[in-house]
């Protein structure tokens, strides 16, 4: 159940682009590429008329439909451990099965995942499986070439201004992206149209800013849209960037949220607690847990997961007319967005700084995280981030300098909850245990609420 009309429209959209890739495969007019989200390369794909298949998305669909297990078991039968990224295991298991049969596995979710013409993997700094997954799949599709883009960014280091090094990072990323263009030109036998690329980059930039403005509306009390919806509206952000459809989607969502705010219509009828989804990918098979939170009066005005954009007008990146150079700067601007703020607060760090910012801006009462056992990329560091937060948001009253310079006694306790399961491996999940944990967490929030009121 979603709170917004916009989020409700996502399911058919996803189904359409899965079936669209199958139609394109059958027609054979356009090249199809396996690839990953958050690589800032969508504009290049679309300018070259290459159809992306977001393989993490397909694995997520298998998970959401509770139909990933048979593909995970296929992967295990090849010798792959269940402890590895289950998106990748699901994808590899599916590929192996499809290639073995020479057709889609029986009753494949939404018709299945089309065979690609090539695969674009990404050796990002944050995800090993991204450069290993397609290499493993190539065992069953040796005729399908891979281009691996290396997209590093400077890791936050306390004693360094990232601008001291980002010049050579930028130079490298530009070369990697130009390499991608050359690869696609060779595969499609077409030349890149740089004017079109520039237009698409501009469209994406405008969409980025629009998303930021739209999501900022969720600061309203009561909150008009929660994380349960955002796990749907992540689709245009992550799978449809550089399309007019994505831009229009957020125009409509923004309008819908403004209307809800005017009517004081919240995600939940009687908003008692405002929570942040502070880290971790969701358990795609258990999104109804958000509804369970809602039923207790808890709303989620903000999340860090899948909000893979940042306001460009607040990014300190150089101007350039070259769209490839801009993509590289935007990449660096995005990943270093919180660095300056983190430098200013002793003991902070970009991910922690982002959490603090969201807690303050969205008036957050508690933090919920999810630890998916199979993914180190997004799920390592969460415990430590909560440790750092607990140094600021202490379970005792603290005095701060308030209005007119007077001391004020405030309660800044911020309870947190870490849920444990996986992104798509349903065998790791217990609904009873999860909901018991949620109930206990809600009790803590209620106790805090009463303390504050007193």
């Amino acid at each position, binding site marked *: 159940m979603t709170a917004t009309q916009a989020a409700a429209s996502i399911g058919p959209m996803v189904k359409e682009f899965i079936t669209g890739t199958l139609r394109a495969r059958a027609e054979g007019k356009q090249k199809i590429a396996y690839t990953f989200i958050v690589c800032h390369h969508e504009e290049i794909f679309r300018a070259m008329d290459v159809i992306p298949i977001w393989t993490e998305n397909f694995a997520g669909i298998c998970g959401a439909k509770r139909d990933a297990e048979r593909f995970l078991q296929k992967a295990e039968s090849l010798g792959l451990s269940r*402890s590895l990224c289950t998106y990748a295991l699901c994808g590899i298991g599916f590929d192996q099965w499809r290639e073995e049969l020479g057709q889609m596995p029986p009753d494949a979710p939404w018709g299945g995942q089309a065979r690609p013409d090539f695969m674009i993997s990404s050796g990002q*700094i*944050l995800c090993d*499986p991204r450069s290993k997954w397609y290499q493993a799949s190539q065992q069953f599709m040796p005729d399908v070439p891979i281009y691996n883009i290396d997209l590093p960014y400077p890791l936050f280091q306390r004693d360094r201004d990232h601008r001291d090094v980002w010049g*050579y990072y930028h*130079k*490298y990323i530009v070369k990697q992206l130009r390499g991608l263009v050359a690869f696609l030109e060779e595969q499609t036998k077409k030349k890149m149209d740089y004017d079109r690329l520039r237009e698409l980059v501009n469209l994406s930039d405008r969409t980025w800013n629009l998303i930021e403005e739209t999501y900022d509306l969720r600061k309203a009390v009561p909150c008009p849209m929660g994380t349960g919806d955002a796990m749907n509206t992540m689709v245009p952000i992550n799978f449809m960037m550089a399309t007019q459809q994505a831009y229009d989607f957020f125009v409509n969502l923004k309008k819908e949220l403004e209307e809800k705010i005017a009517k004081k219509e919240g995600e939940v009828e009687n908003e008692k607690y405002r929570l942040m989804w502070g880290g971790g990918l969701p358990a795609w098979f258990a999104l109804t847990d958000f509804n369970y939170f809602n039923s207790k009066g808890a709303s989620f005005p903000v999340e860090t997961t899948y909000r893979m954009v940042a306001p460009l007008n607040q990014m300190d990146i150089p101007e350039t007319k070259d769209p490839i150079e801009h993509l590289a700067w935007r990449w660096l601007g995005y990943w270093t967005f919180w660095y300056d703020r983190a430098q200013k607060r002793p003991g902070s760090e970009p991910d922690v700084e982002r959490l603090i910012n969201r807690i303050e801006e969205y008036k957050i009462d508690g933090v919920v995280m999810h630890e998916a056992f199979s993914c180190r990329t997004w799920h390592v560091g969460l415990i430590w981030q909560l440790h750092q937060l607990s140094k600021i948001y202490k379970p005792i009253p603290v005095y701060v300098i308030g209005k007119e310079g007077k001391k004020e006694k405030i309660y800044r306790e911020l309870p947190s909850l870490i849920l444990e399961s996986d992104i798509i491996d349903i065998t790791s999940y217990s609904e009873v245990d999860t909901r018991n944990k949620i109930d206990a967490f809600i009790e803590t929030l209620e106790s805090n609420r009463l303390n504050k009121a007193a």
Partner: protein
Amino acid sequence: MSGKQDNILNTVEKYYKDYGLRAKELKKEGKKLIGYVCSFVPLEIISASGCIPFRVRGDIYEPITKGDALLETIVCPYYRSVFDLAVKGKYEFLSGLVIPHGCDSMVRSYSTWSYSLPYSYFHFVNIPTVCAESSSEFFQAELDTFRKSLEKFTGKAITDDDLARTIQIYNENRDKVKALYEFRKADPPLISGAELTMVLTVGSSLPIGEFNTLLDQVLAEIRKRGKSPLKKGPRIFIDGACLDNIELIKLVEELGGNVVADTICNGARDYFPKTDVGRDPIDALARRYLDKINCPKTYRENKTGTFEGDIASRFWDIGAYAKEFKVDGAILYVYKYCDPFGFEVPARKAYYKSINVPLLPLEDVYSAGTMSQLRTRIQAFLEMIG
């Protein structure tokens, strides 16, 4: 570190069991020790700065306790163990720590390390994921940043001559290690796998000059040996990541196998490749650490268009060493939650099949508690190939 030549392996054992003993002495002498994990950290630069590189290791007998309060249990168990020892103060003699982009566990936990430990110096070295000309250029710039960071920390310039000199010393070190591996070619080998891993593990806790002296002493000791410490048995190859304890190898040898070759990180993967001399030292180091260290973390393009060609190219070292050391069987030892190695298991299995080397793939959790299970599986494997 000192020891008479005739009992040098006893001395090695002492330093292995009390890991960091020499480092503590050096700390008292006012030396700066810089800890590191993974084979991707260019030790030559640390040594050229006047600091002493010290490989932090885990302990399979030590339950992970304090570390788990700060770091998720989905991190590779070897790395968790190292972190746990560090937060318990095992490495308090260190002045700093260097972590490279070796895997997600290293990258994502860097903040946790740098804020949880009291060292005054931390540095992260970003390693490209692909091997291309642009990657090499980038990596050179990144190594130069590392060099400047150490210069700032020590207050001493690191000249090209300093680097050239340490490159030479490390290359000598690798020659000596290679010479030690030569003793494994005898049947049965003149040095056991447990002895060799113990020497290399201890060596990574010493200044490079002392490690070289140690190797000279060990080489002299082994040369004097009339016979092998092992009975003739199946010649076993160990394939995997970092194996900084001897328990698995000892187990294989107790069960009658002879461990004669490997691709492990504190073994052939790290010690066999040398740095080119006569070129710009940073360029030479970039090429060694990126191109020559054959780690699954680095993506290597399939230029053959076939799966068979791809695995022959990616795993060439396994085939070459298996032939050179005449192995009868291999153990692929992979840690749970290790994505870089874990995703290669099917391809590695196929490669071993293609070179007709029987394989025992094992997934383990870096704990002494699993040794009895491993014993059963290894025993069955040795009986099968014996």
